């Protein structure tokens, strides 16, 4: 599920006063300290961050030690987890643990690239539409609405079906280009409310150019909001990629968590009771995306004092 009407996301805060990071705008150094202070005391943020960090380290550090291809036929066939093969082996004697850590890598990569591209497009569209207004806003809004209504996953299925060169990069690019609209909408709303503030008027009077005002005056004032939007896009991209891989539209030679589930189901791991083949990949995705969401709630509380538990 791409995080569209983002659960717990920054969506409700369209009101001016609830803009994140405004309450503590006393001075830069003090504000930084305060953010860190509350961040270190927020159990949701910490728990989410620890889970994501552990999986990230596993994805980055473990594969070099394993050596060889994760798809190599290294062991006995269809073995349950043991000391030698931690997550057991597949029907063909592939090491599920090796596939899992390599799959984590591509999961993080897709999230980073796909979420990054979506955030970039969403930010450009949102900032320009919100700041410029008028006809530009109308046109961008129309485009946003159209892409918003089109079911992203189904468009991606069609596109991927015809694409012969499928890799993680292409997949992320396509995901990024289809999942930005809700972010653009949210950022536009925030920009609209900031663009009428006095300090923005002042910058405009002083003759700054539009892009300078957007990047120097508006964007920093909603940086926490942008960061949270990126996290949600990151999680959404992971889920979409997993779905595509599961249908069999992923990178043909690669390893990914979605692809592991695809092969587990196609080689009847369910009927054979080989739970070690299909439980870890889904659990990995759920852990990453769920922790990201919970982290986001924590971040929301850190940046927005009104949400902090008293």
């Amino acid at each position, binding site marked *: *599920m*791409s*995080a*569209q*009407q983002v*659960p*717990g996301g920054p*969506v*409700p*805060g369209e009101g001016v006063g609830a803009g994140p990071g405004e309450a503590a705008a006393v001075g830069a150094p003090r504000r930084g300290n305060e953010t860190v202070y509350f961040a270190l005391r927020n159990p949701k943020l910490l728990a989410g961050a620890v889970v994501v960090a552990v999986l990230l380290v596993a994805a980055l550090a473990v594969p070099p030690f394993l050596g060889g291809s994760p798809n190599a036929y290294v062991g006995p066939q269809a073995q349950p987890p043991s000391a030698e093969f931690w997550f057991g082996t597949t029907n063909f004697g592939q090491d599920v643990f090796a596939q899992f850590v390599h799959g984590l890598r591509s999961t993080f990569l897709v999230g980073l690239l796909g979420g990054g591209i979506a955030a970039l497009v969403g930010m450009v569209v949102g900032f320009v539409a919100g700041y410029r207004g008028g006809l530009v806003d109308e046109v961008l809004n*129309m485009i946003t*609405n*159209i892409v*918003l*209504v*089109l*079911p*992203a*996953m*189904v*468009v991606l*299925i*069609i*596109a991927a*079906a*015809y*694409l*012969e*060169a499928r890799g993680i990069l292409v997949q992320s690019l396509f995901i990024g280009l289809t999942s930005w609209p*809700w972010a653009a909408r949210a950022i536009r709303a925030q920009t609209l409310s900031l663009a009428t503030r006095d300090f923005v008027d002042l910058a405009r009077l002083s003759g700054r150019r539009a892009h300078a005002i957007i990047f120097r005056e508006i964007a920093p004032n909603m940086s926490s909001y942008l960061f949270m939007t990126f996290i949600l896009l990151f*999680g959404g991209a992971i*889920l*979409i990629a*997993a*779905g595509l891989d*599961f*249908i*069999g*539209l992923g990178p043909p030679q690669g390893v990914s968590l*979605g692809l592991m*589930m695809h092969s*587990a*189901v196609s080689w009847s791991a*369910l*009927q054979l*009771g080989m739970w070690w083949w*299909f*439980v870890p*990949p*889904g*659990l990995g*995705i*759920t852990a*990453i*995306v*769920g922790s*990201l*969401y*919970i982290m986001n*709630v924590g971040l929301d509380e850190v940046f927005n004092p009104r949400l902090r538990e008293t």
Partner: protein
Amino acid sequence: MWRYFGRKLFVYALTFFVAVTINWMIPRFMPGDPVRSMLARASVGNAEALEAMRAYYSSLFGLDLPVWQQYLNFWGSLLRGDLGTSVWLFPTPVSEVILGAVPYTLGLLVPAILLSWIAGNKFGAFAARGRWLDNTVLPVGYLLTATPYMWLGILLAWSLGIVAGIFPTAGAYGFALQPSLSWAFVSSLVLHWFLPFLSLFLVAFGGWAIGMRNMIIYELEADYSSYLEALGAPRRLVRRYAFRNALLPQLTGLALQLGTIVAGALLTEIVFSYPGLGNLILEALNNRDFFLLQGAFLFIVLGVLIANFVIDVVYVLVDPRVRVQMQGGAA
């Protein structure tokens, strides 16, 4: 009133236009040649036969005409309801194949969407600001929404279907049965329907519960809530107002989530070999049946657009502000 709906309908019409155009463009402008990949699949060695087949497929797609002519022809046949002929189930027309699958998909989607939305909202409102419930519900809800649809489907199929043996895990009804209105058939239909429905329901439920919980907390912070509380209004009354206010964004959220839930239904159908559109798409991919694939795409887009419009209408019925605004505009 007509202005509002006119504007909405215009966007939807434009979206449909874009969808059809994408549908037309993708096979023609993607890197890679669909005709060649179809020929590669047929694995014909004879060069002469290959050439004849290439000519046949090119004329079938209309690839030998000028581009604008191809585009107009595409619209023409689309408006006549002609989506081409399925390669997988040759010679059944694509529209017929799809219409056979649509009831199954709708039968999964509509109850799953409606029930999860209603139950999720009620539960989220109930859990909000209850210290104990809030702290347990919140993580569980987030984990549920973060679960890939197909994985929850796999887990349910494995645990309740294969290990416990309570529910069947493939198809829409028993293999030995013929569709009829008998008790045996209907009960088998319901048994086969339950697990895919449950996995769709659970994932969506988590999202709605969390959304509602967050909205309620936001509403309880609003001035009107504090005012009511200061007046000494009972807690339940304040909460009821907050709930009604929070429902509107949740309705907008439903419109935004439709595409995601539909995609989830497609994935769930694949896990359970449920004979809806998702399975059809998988078969189309496996058999490189591009007409079927594109037909399914158009049907799904059309369905999502119609559902969006229904939500727009409901929104007008539910939100007094929009209603008054429209009456004012009309007068």
